[in-house]
C-alpha cells in the first residue's frame, strides 16, 4: 500500500544514492585532509539511513490517496505560468511577460471578468516596474520594443 512515508523514504534514498554517485567525480581526501567529496558522501550516507528508516516505518502513515490532491491541478497550472515567467523574463522583457502571466492567471485560470483582469494586470505590472526599476534601481530586463 502506497503511503506518504514510503514514497518519501524511497525518494530520499534515491536522492542520496544519486549524490553519492555524482560525488565519485570529486576527490574524497582523507580524514585529516577532507576533500570536496567528503561531506557530501557523509551526508548522503546519513540520508540513506534516514530515508530507509522512514520507509521502514511507513506503514502507519497516511495512504497516498487519502492525502487530498484537489488543488494539485490548480497548483500545476500556477507552476506552469510561473515557468513561463521565468522563460520569458529575459527574452520578452519584464513588462510584457508579467502582463501576459497576470492576465492569464486572473482571467483564464481564475475566471474573473476580462476588464477587471486587464486593469489588474496593467496596474500591477507597471506599478511594480516603477517600484523596482525606477525607485529601487533594480534593472529589470527589457525585451523587444523596450518592454
Amino acid at each position, binding site marked *: 500500500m502506497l503511503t*506518504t*512515508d514510503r*514514497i*518519501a523514504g524511497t525518494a*530520499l534514498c534515491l*536522492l542520496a544514492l544519486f*549524490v553519492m554517485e*555524482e560525488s565519485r567525480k*570529486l*576527490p574524497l581526501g582523507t580524514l*585529516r*585532509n*577532507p*576533500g*570536496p567529496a567528503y*561531506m*557530501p558522501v557523509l*551526508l*548522503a550516507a*546519513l*540520508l540513506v539511513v*534516514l*530515508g530507509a*528508516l*522512514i520507509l521502514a*516505518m511507513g506503514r502507519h*502513515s*497516511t495512504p497516498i490517496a487519502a*492525502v*487530498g*490532491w*484537489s*488543488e*494539485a*491541478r*490548480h*497548483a500545476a497550472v*500556477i*507552476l506552469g*505560468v*510561473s515557468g513561463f*515567467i*521565468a522563460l520569458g*523574463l529575459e527574452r520578452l522583457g519584464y513588462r510584457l511577460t508579467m502582463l501576459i*502571466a*497576470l492576465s492569464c*492567471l*486572473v482571467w483564464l485560470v*481564475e475566471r*474573473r471578468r476580462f476588464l477587471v483582469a486587464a486593469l*489588474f494586470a496593467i496596474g*500591477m*505590472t507597471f506599478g*511594480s516596474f516603477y517600484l*523596482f526599476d525606477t525607485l*529601487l*534601481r*533594480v*534593472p*529589470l530586463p527589457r525585451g523587444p520594443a523596450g518592454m
Partner: protein
Amino acid sequence: MAETLQNLALGFSVALSPPVLLYAFVGCVVGTLVGVLPGVGPLAGISLLLPATFGLNATNAIVMLAGIYYGAMYGGSTTSILMRIPGEAASVMTCIDGYAMARKGRAGAALAIAAIGSFIAGTVSVVALMLLAPPLAILALRFGPPEYFALLLLGLLVLAYMSGGSMVKSLAMAVLGLLLGMVGIDQMSGYFRFAYGIVELGDGIGVVPLAVGLFGIAEVLATAGQETPPEVLKPRLRELLPSRREWRDSVMPIGRGTVLGFVIGIIPGSAHIIASFVSYALERRLSRRPEEFGRGAVAGVAGPESANNAATSGAFVPMLALGVPSGPIPAVMLAALMVHGVAPGPLLIKQSPELFWGFIASMYVGNLMLLALNLPMVGLFVNVLRAPYSFLYPAIIMFCVVGVYAVNGSVVDVWIALLMGALGYLLRKLGFETAPIVLGAILAPMIELALRQSLAMSDGQYGIFLSRPIAGSLLASGALLVLLNLLSWMARGLDWRRRLALTEKGENL
C-alpha cells in the same frame, strides 16, 4: 560614564539635526519597503542604494544605509505573518507561528508584538553597542575557524528543537538542506560541486530563492486551488492589539531574543540569519507549552523577531570598533565609509566621534521612527488580507519572482525559487517540515569550511578543537547539552514527542 553621556549628547545633536533625521527616515522607509517585499532583503536594498549615497556626506550616507538594514528587519515580519511568505531570509521562522496566529484572527497582535519586540531589541542592543563596542569587538576577533565549527555544531543541535513531530523526518529534512548547501564552488579546493556547468550556481543555491520558494511559492501552490479560500477571521479594531496574556508570554522571549541576537551578530561571519532560527528553537525548548509552537505561539514570533533586530546592532560592533566586516552587509557599509573618505579601522571612534556617536544616536531615533511607522500600519496591512485570494495570489507570485530576480539579476535564481516551491508543496503534502531545510542549507557550507580551515590551520590535527579555549568550552557545553537531553529523554520517555506526533497526525500542515 560621564564621558559616554557627553558623547551621546554630541551624538544626539548630530542625529536630531534635520538632514540626518531626513536620511534616517528615508532609510527606515526604504528598509521597511525592502523588508516587506519578498526576496529583496536588506543586502539587496543596501547594495542597490549604495550609489545613491555617493553624493551625500559620510554621516548621512551611513545613517541611511543603517536605516535600511534594521528597517528591513521590521518590515520582514509583515509578509511573514500575513501571508506566510518571508520578507527576507531572516523572517522565515516568523512565518510559522506568525501566520498561524493570523489564521486564528490574531494577525494584528502578531504584527504588534513583532514591531514592539523589534523596537525593544533594537534599542537595548544599541545601548550595548554604545557601551561595549571596543571590548566586545576584541572578543569577536578571537573567533577563528575552530570556534566557528564548535558554535555551528551547537547550531546543528538546534535543528532538533525546531520542529515537532517525527525526529527522523526533521533530521531527514535537515540533511536534505545540508546537501543543498553543498552545491557550488568548494572554497578549499576550487572544485565546482554539483553545478553542472551553470556558472550562476558557483556560489551555491542562494538562501533567498530557497526561502522564498519553499515558503512563499509553496504556500501559494497549496492554497490557491483550495475549494474554500483561506479563512481569515476579520479582526475588529480592538482585537488588533495583543491581549494581556500575549504580552506576558512575549516578555521573556523578547529578552532572550535580544541577548541571543546581539551575541550572534557580533561574531564575524556567523550569518546573522541564524539568530532567528536559534531563538525559535530556544523558545520552544524553554516553553511550558511546546505543543503550541507551530500553532500560533506568541513566543515563536516575539523571540525570532527580537533576535533579528538585535543581530543587526551586533553586526555593527566589529564594523565600527575595528573596521572589520562581520558579514556581507557591514562590508558594504564599510565600503560606503571608504568611499566617503572615512577610513574604517580601530581609530574610527576616536577620529570621527561625530560619525560614531551620531550613528548610534540615529539608531535610537530610527527605531522610534520604525515603531511609529509600523504600529499604525498594522491596521492597514491587515486590510490587505481582505482582498479576494484570486487577485492576491497572482500579485504574490509576481512579487516573489521580482524579489528573487532583484537580488542578483539572475533568472537562475527564479528557477531555483520555482523548483523549491514545487518541492515545498510536495513536502507539505507528504507531511514534512520545510524550515530545517533552510537552516541546513545555510549551515552546511559554513560548517564544512570551518572544519577544513581548522584542519588546514593545524595541519590535520583534530586536537586543535580542544586545545583552543573558546572552541573547547563550546564543544564541551554542546556535549553536556546532548547528554542532559538524552538523560531527560530517557527519563520522561517518549511522552511529549509522541503526544505531539499524534496530535499533529490529524492535521495536514
